[in-house]
């Protein structure tokens, strides 16, 4: 566990394992709340790379949160779009 504390989990927002773990322990929260509190998964890729890791942290830290219970919650857009192109399509 040499550099684990400072290991980046969310590459887009550079949220570390230490930060996620301490927030999860303190608030005993859902994966969604953990993301809102730390900004993990809120960056450019929309959580594509880190969501699995964030879910696992919750699964392993918060009592009674099992993998199957963590809701598969996605919100559009699932790909980054410019404000312009969303506007044109509505």
């Amino acid at each position, binding site marked *: *566990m*040499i*550099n*684990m504390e*400072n*290991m*980046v*989990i969310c*590459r887009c927002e550079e949220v570390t*394992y230490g930060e996620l*773990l301490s927030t999860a322990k303190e608030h005993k929260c859902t994966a969604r709340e953990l993301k809102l509190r730390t900004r993990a998964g809120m960056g450019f890729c929309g959580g*594509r*790379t*880190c969501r*699995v*890791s964030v879910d*696992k*942290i919750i699964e*392993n*830290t918060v009592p009674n949160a099992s*993998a*199957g219970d963590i809701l*598969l*919650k*996605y*919100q*559009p*857009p*699932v*790909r*980054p*779009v410019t404000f312009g*192109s969303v506007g*044109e*399509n509505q």
Partner: protein
Amino acid sequence: MSDVIVIGAGPAGLAGAIASASNGLSVTVLDEFIKPGGRLLGQLHQEPSGEWWNGMKESERLFLEANNLSVDIRCGVSVYNLEKDENLWNVHTNIGTLTARYVLVATGAAEYPVPVPGWTLPGVMSIGAAQVMTNVHRVQVGKKGIIIGANILSFAILNELQLAGINVDRIILPEKNSISGKAGEPEEVLKTLLHAAHLAPSPLMRFGSHFMKNNWLRKMAIHFYPKSGMKVNGTPLQLRIAAVEIVGKEQVEGVKVANTDAAGQVIPGTEVLYEADFVCIAGGLYPLAELAAVAGCPFEYIPELGGHVPCHSETMETPLGGLFVAGNITGIESGKISMAQGTIAGIAIANHAGKVSSTIDQQLQQAVQQVRSVREQATIQFNPEIDKGRSKMKEIWETKFAPLDKEYSHKKIV
């Protein structure tokens, strides 16, 4: 407007497009990548028969077949949202919104990330990235690399990198932590590898399977597992070495590793640095289902299928009218299974659309049968319990959704 929009031009999407188009429907296929084929493009391995499975050729074959049936294949198109409006599906993309009565979501799989300290450095990539760079773009990813993570996917791609003349120095495990989980535990990794042993191409694995099924022997084997590793195709597989940190200033220069005990705990004071100019992280695959999720499709968590999968019937329909799924989005299996599932979906869509030829029921039954027989003959199986996973989904569909489906079909006829 097409009758069908297929999202994803991989083996499932293209096979689905071909089956729908052969039954008289107009089909548009969308894909983000620069050419059709999906993950099939990079696949290259030798079958037990000695024949090569050449994903690039298979992709070309599917593309030509689809093209001959006037399927409109558009590459470089990203879909960012999917929603139903009355009877039509709106597929929102970077080139505008397309509509169709039927949508086949065949978005395949994404790779599990395994975070390692230093993994944001240039030169660190997912193992799938290395596969695409090597076999699709034909550019070497580096001179000397280290693979972190030992699983079926990493073995398959190791072989592909070696074929292209790329030196993979060693395969090691990620350090055990609450994210890497079992992938960081030598005994668990060995167990998983041996599960797939009779299917694995490597002689080591075949050798191992004979006597390592016994728990006690396996424990002994991992206890006495040589530090230098055992060779897989000439590359040491070091199950008792963990990646502690990837180091480098502007890009990868090496990986700091440490010896571990049989459970994966790092033994302090054993750290050494292995030089490398690239690192591949191999965490395995999970179904990439975000578009089915934003569309509102119900999901089930089925670990044997790779995680959360959209609920679907054996004929690839979802509980949402007009929405079908096929390929790795329904569970992680080989490209051949994806193709066979795509064919089912394509025929099922034609059936729903009322393109009833005298043979359509027979076609559909044959296609379902085809998936089963391909699965039985599979040389690579990502999850040894795939059958269990498929049965679970079938049961869930039959208890939860099949009655609803009858209502729906009834309405459709009226």
